[in-house]
């Protein structure tokens, strides 16, 4: 096996392990953490009592000083 051939082989296998491994790890971690348990609640975590659901948070600047 020539050096470039070995490199291609190593990178291909390494990529499989890296990308596949990361995906498996991330999925198993999120299941363990209960990330998928209450998605309704999850979708509302970007709101809070100061910027609640129903409140628009962007507008064109006014012309007043």
């Amino acid at each position, binding site marked *: 096996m020539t*050096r*470039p051939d070995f*490199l*291609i082989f190593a*990178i291909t296998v390494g*990529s499989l392990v*890296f*990308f596949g491994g*990361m*995906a498996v790890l991330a*999925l198993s971690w*999120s299941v363990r*953490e209960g*990330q*998928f348990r209450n*998605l*309704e*609640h*999850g*979708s*509302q*975590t*970007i*709101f*809070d*009592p*100061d*910027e*609640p*659901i*129903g*409140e*628009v*948070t*962007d*507008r*064109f*600047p*006014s*012309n007043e*000083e």
Partner: protein
Amino acid sequence: MSADSFAVERARIDASTRLPVLVWFASALFWLVFGSLAALAASLKMHTPEFLGASQALTFGFIRPIHLNTVVYGWSSMAGIGTLLWLIPRLARTMLVFPKLLVFSAIVWNIGVLAGTVGLFLGMTTGIEWLEFPPFVPPILTFALLIVTFCGFATFRQRNERHVYVTLWYVLGALVWMPAVYVIAVTLCVYQPAPGVVQAATNWWFAHNVLGLWLTPIGVGAAYYIIPKVLGRPIYSYYLSIVGFWALALFYSWAGMHHLIGGPLPTWLVSASVVGSIMMFIPVLAVALNHHMTMVGNFHHLRYSPTLRFVVFGAMAYTVVSFQGSIEALRSFNVISHFTHYTISHAHLGLYGFFSMVMFGCMYYIVPRLTEWEWASAGLIRLHFWCSAIGITLYFVALTVGGWHQGMMAQDASIAHISQVEFTKPYLWARSVGGTLMLIGNLTFALLFTLNLMKLGKRRVGETTFRTPMKAVRVS
């Protein structure tokens, strides 16, 4: 916690990101203007070849990779990194860690892009599309990117919000994928070039993944935060958004080989890529459905919110460009559209119509919250939007129609090549007009950003930021 304490917490978190995010954004805008000027020069040369033809460094072969690399690594990547550095602490409800280190990483990244651009002007290109920067540049960019990835995950680790919002999945995914994809690509294409078609396969695997595993997750992830946040309405189907993320993670990296349809690659490899491209309908449908259904009943807000206007335009362009991309991967379609201006229009709809417009929208939301200074002029924001929107639409329509006809003419062996070239000229002129409009839009935004950063003009606070953050901090 009272409403005020939430406002204080949010203001403190935003403040922790101020310096690095503004440095990444300011640099991005410099490269946007620079890259747009190179783009316009390249576009004019397509129908007026003698334009700037006297200088070697300004010929098409030089200026085109300069445009590509400055808008991908300068503008898009830097705008994306600035946005994700603001998003991660907000969604993790914690301070950004090592902000000074992130400013340092922005300086290093700028040095890399600047050195690469000077190298390209001097003719030191690798000749590999999307990786043209000279061989001394990738280690600089990789080093800066690894700092960003490290700080992103270190911030995430300190999170006070237990739930990982879908945007976080996307941006953290991008931070893992991009360094790996970049290092693998430069290794097999530049430092230890793989023999034969493996190099071409790696090249297009990389080029497509820059879009799919780097810019797309940042753009889509940002839209998943900005649209519901601006409207004050949760995403239509959060479940679908999670499915969409995992489907993207699973299928996008397959898609690159559709650039090599008809090339001397093993058929199974190209076929697998075509299948992966078609499977992308799943995450794209999930995103399209979610963005559209969240907006239903709220389209009137587009009149009042600059952020929403840009992000929704970007989200719609994402749907169009992604469906188009999947169809372009079909062999029967590809044989006509590939190697024509059709592909160029598709690429620009993705990088400008989708990604850049989402980034503009994000910046309109983020910057006033960091500088505590209102945007200088609603009129200039409108000018920016309409120049960019009409510019990219004209560009897309002209090159799509012209490119398709060009492809059909190429199928007929009796039509001389020069006839195709002559035929495309009016469409190329239309492209230059569209490009000029986009340049005007970009310059307008750069002016607005500079005015805001330097706090020039009358003091304006209120409408954009809604609650002056530091006032909230002081009240506490």
